């Protein structure tokens, strides 16, 4: 049967199926036929007379297939895919998508289990032999040009990335700051085109390494902002600096939250999670007394509180900004989060401050540091990263 005849037959089956009464014997027979013929789930997403559930399944499969073949993990789509039942038109597609996912994760047992669920009559069974070929389980003897090109593209050498990595290693060995920053910047942009998850992990490594070598991460963070958006760039930077510079990391967590609050889609749950992270960081660096740092922190806290009050009127309004920013952050977190750890931090804070001052909730030293008149005009030990908040 040639390609045109097959296509016409498939179109006719689809039309008949869409006209049949759901649940009827004709419907079930046609559904089983189509299940073994469906070569493009996207065609059903766009077709007329498709019911809402079927269209939804088609969209889920199309989105998941696009995501998995592009190397993007879309948890929401994968979560929806588990609802597609065995008798669905898209069942073989669902199993193929899981098989492709397992292939890229090198979980070959899972890949085989999924592929074995695809019936040999389905055109998708072609991918069984191709994936077995790619994993070395069974090599295809008579491979056609199109299949060869497909396989070649999947296993194509990327030695240029290896040479870039060598350049980065050299730049660190010889302490060539410009070379390090330029190369990591270019690689970050390149990775983000096809490997956004890996690009994020590389961004963290780059910023962390720059910080360790006392290189300015400003350009790297700017590239992150272009590549991932402000919220994500600040989050990645906060993670990168969490061990080496927890005080600066806290500033980036707050920046990330402010940026997210300015968008429309933040929920109270996500805000609460941010507040827990911020409270944890505040606890770690609560004795910090660097005047420039406290000035920057206080500025960010003001912006954050403004955005929080705008977004969640009433929740934070009963917590006034106090002179000790760390105490304020720990206290504020309990307004948003239901997690016990935040309450424990607040109890400890209250107990300790009671011991120190008798009644105040902050130490005199920190209080005096955050007063503007006590901040010197210049500082010789101002961290490079603070320049980002000027």
């Amino acid at each position: 049967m040639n390609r045109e005849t097959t296509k016409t037959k498939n179109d006719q089956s689809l039309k008949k199926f869409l006209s049949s009464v759901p649940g009827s014997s004709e419907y079930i027979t046609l559904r089983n036929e189509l299940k073994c013929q469906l070569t493009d789930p996207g065609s059903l997403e766009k077709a007329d007379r498709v019911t809402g559930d079927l269209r939804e399944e088609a969209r889920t499969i199309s989105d998941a297939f696009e995501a998995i073949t592009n190397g993007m993990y879309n948890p929401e789509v994968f979560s929806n895919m588990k609802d597609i039942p065995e008798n669905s038109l898209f069942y073989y597609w669902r199993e193929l998508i899981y098989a492709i996912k397992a292939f890229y994760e090198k979980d070959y047992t899972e890949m085989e289990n999924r592929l074995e669920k695809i019936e040999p009559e389905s055109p998708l069974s072609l991918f069984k032999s191709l994936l077995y070929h790619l994993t070395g389980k069974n090599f295809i003897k008579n491979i056609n040009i199109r299949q060869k090109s497909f396989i070649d593209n999947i296993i194509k050498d990327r030695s240029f990335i290896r040479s870039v990595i060598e350049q980065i290693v050299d730049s660190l060995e010889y302490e060539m700051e410009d070379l390090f920053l330029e190369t990591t910047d270019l690689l970050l942009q390149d990775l983000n085109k096809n490997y956004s998850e890996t690009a994020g992990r590389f961004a963290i490594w780059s910023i962390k390494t720059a910080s360790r070598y006392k290189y300015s991460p400003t350009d790297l963070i700017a590239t992150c902002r272009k590549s991932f958006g402000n919220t994500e760039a600040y989050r990645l930077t906060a993670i990168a600096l969490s061990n080496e510079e927890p005080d600066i990391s806290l500033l980036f967590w707050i920046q990330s939250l402010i940026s997210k609050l300015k968008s429309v889609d933040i929920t109270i749950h996500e805000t609460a999670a941010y507040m827990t992270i911020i409270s944890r960081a505040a606890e770690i660096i609560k004795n910090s007394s660097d005047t420039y740092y406290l000035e920057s922190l206080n500025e960010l806290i003001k912006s954050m509180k403004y955005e929080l009050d705008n977004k969640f009127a009433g929740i934070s309004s009963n917590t006034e900004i106090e002179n000790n920013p760390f105490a304020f952050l720990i206290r504020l977190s309990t307004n948003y989060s239901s997690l016990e750890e935040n309450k424990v931090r607040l109890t400890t804070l209250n107990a300790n401050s009671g011991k120190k001052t008798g009644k105040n909730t902050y130490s005199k030293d920190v209080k005096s540091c955050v007063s503007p008149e006590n901040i010197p005009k210049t500082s010789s030990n101002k961290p490079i990263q603070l320049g980002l908040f000027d």
Partner: protein
Amino acid sequence: MKTDNLFRLFNISTDSEDYEVEESFQKLIKKAASDSEKIEVSEIFHLIDTKEKRYLYFLTSTKGFEDISELDNAIISRPNYIGPRQWLELLD
């Protein structure tokens, strides 16, 4: 058990409802081969059993490479992603 990405393990997202996470948890418990694996699944479940905790996990779980050589494993030794078109073309 691969526990590096709990969302993948449970097949959920930050927006999943608590009952969906509970369902996934029950499935994983049934699949667990040993008591120690069941304990591991239970401990993991408590890290993500509410929406707030799922966001907390999501926000903090991204790990940077420990060493640049890990990029080699993550990218170079992994198959290329070629997009959906080339896969669909084989079915034409």
